[in-house]
């Protein structure tokens, strides 16, 4: 478990982390999302000791991350594999040697039968069996990130930290990498912590998410709770849902569907039972992990407003007037 309590961090006069508190449970996929400059990468770097923090505490399974005790920090870093936006592979080493590199830092033989088995198993896990001796420049972005993932796993970490790991990849490759991370989480039980500014990433695999804004945690919870019906304007702005062109006459009502609700034909039922007309102005369907969540804006006559609202309440559909 990672426990972050009231962490603060400044660069010169700029405070980038303003008292962050979070708890990341074992074996979950946890997302840290926010605009650029929200402090999310800095937070991740503080978690694995690449950056120091000014006050507060970060505990990994009860041990505090601190630069004071170099040896303890090194041991903690061994528990945390990390992957990056720029992949950060050594250009002169082939796939095998890149993956083996962390072993060398820990004084392990990289050519011993156990090490070889370990490395080849990882190469198989990330699906690069035919690229064992390829150099990074012969690989595509997605393949490079696969090598980086294998490298991050070679010391058998408990946590995998991902710093904008899919930001340099196209949508299709992003999906593949995310599926791989999900597989690693499921099969190896590794806790995955993902820093990203991409909603798609959070939607596809994160079980819980923290929304960071201006150095603070604005909201925390399940992605579907945070993003299907966003409460805070910062999140709405982030999702770019503010400036939809909606009719100025009548009443605009936004409906939110989650889980089971999204499969029931509520809208057509409502039209029939209220015997009234309304127009659909805007709609969106989203997948959060395996479930579909949707949101719909309808425009109704002023006189129908109360009937529509009570109908929606009966059907247990969340709504709000926009």
């Amino acid at each position: 478990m990672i426990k972050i309590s009231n962490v603060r961090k400044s660069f010169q006069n700029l405070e980038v982390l303003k008292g962050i508190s979070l708890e990341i449970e074992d074996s979950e996929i946890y997302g840290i999302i926010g605009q650029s400059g929200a402090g999310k990468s800095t937070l991740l770097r503080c978690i694995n000791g690449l950056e120091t923090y000014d006050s507060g505490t970060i505990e990994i399974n009860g041990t505090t991350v601190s630069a004071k005790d170099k040896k303890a920090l090194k041991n903690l870093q061994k528990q945390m594999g990390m992957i990056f936006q720029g992949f950060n592979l050594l250009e002169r080493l082939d796939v095998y040697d890149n993956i083996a590199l962390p072993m060398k830092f820990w004084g392990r033989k990289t050519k011993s039968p156990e090490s070889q088995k370990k490395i080849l198993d990882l190469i198989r896990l990330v699906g690069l069996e035919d690229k064992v001796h390829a150099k990074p420049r012969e690989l595509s972005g997605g393949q490079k990130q696969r090598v980086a993932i294998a490298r991050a796993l070679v010391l058998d970490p408990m946590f995998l930290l991902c710093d904008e790991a899919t930001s340099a990849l196209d949508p299709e490759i992003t999906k593949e990498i995310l599926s791989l991370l999900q597989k690693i989480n499921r099969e190896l039980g590794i806790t995955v912590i993902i820093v990203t500014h991409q909603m798609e990433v959070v939607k596809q695999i994160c079980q819980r998410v923290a929304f960071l804004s201006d150095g603070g945690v604005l909201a925390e919870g399940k992605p579907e709770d945070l993003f299907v019906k966003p409460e805070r304007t910062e999140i709405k702005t982030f999702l770019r849902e503010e400036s939809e062109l909606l009719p100025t006459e009548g009443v605009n009502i936004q409906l939110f569907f989650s889980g089971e609700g999204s499969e029931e034909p509520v809208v057509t039922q409502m039209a029939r039972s209220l015997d009234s007309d309304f127009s659909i102005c805007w709609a969106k369907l989203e997948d959060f992990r395996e479930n579909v969540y949707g949101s719909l804006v309808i425009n109704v006559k002023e006189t129908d407003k109360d009937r529509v609202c009570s109908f929606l309440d009966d059907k247990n559909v969340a709504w709000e007037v926009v």
Partner: protein
Amino acid sequence: MGIVSTTSMTSIILDALGQTLYMVFWSTFFSVILGFIPAVILTLTAPDGLHPVKAVYEVLSFIVNVFRSFPFIILLVILIPFTRIVVGKSIGTTASIVPLTISAIPFIARIFESSLRETDRGVIEAARSFGASNLQILLRVYVKESIPRMLNGVVLLIISLIGYSAMAGTVGGGGIGDIAIRFGYQQYKTDYLVTCSIILIVFVQVIQMIGNRMYKHLS
């Protein structure tokens, strides 16, 4: 002069070529080893290094600049007492290796420093994230990744040492450049001048070609 006239041009030039190779080889050898050390210190203590120490970086950087700005011909003269301490004499092919090396150290140190510092920050960060020590990062990341660039630097060094070794003739160093000046220029023997020039051109081309091949192979 009697000796010169009875000795064939071929043997004179071959001797000189041997002296040039001897001077260039040993001065390259020593300056690469001795230049690597300040390069590493500069890299580590630079503001973006693994262990930034402003004072060390700036003092060392200043010293390197001072030595680099000395004209070689002046260095050659200033270093005469030092050369005598190191090799026991101040004149001759072996003696000229000392000023050649001293002048080459700051040159190659700067080249190595910039080669090392070109290493991708992200890769260094990745190594740190896996718990690598500074020494491990230095050897397994900085040096490992910079080898092709450093090799290019050595080629540059060898080529400029060939040029400098010609000047070393002035302290009795001998070598191709010396023959070209003394026979070709001062005694109006055009055939010497042309032959020496061709040898130097071929020499530089071959070194550059080998360097390029090795760079390609290593990177």
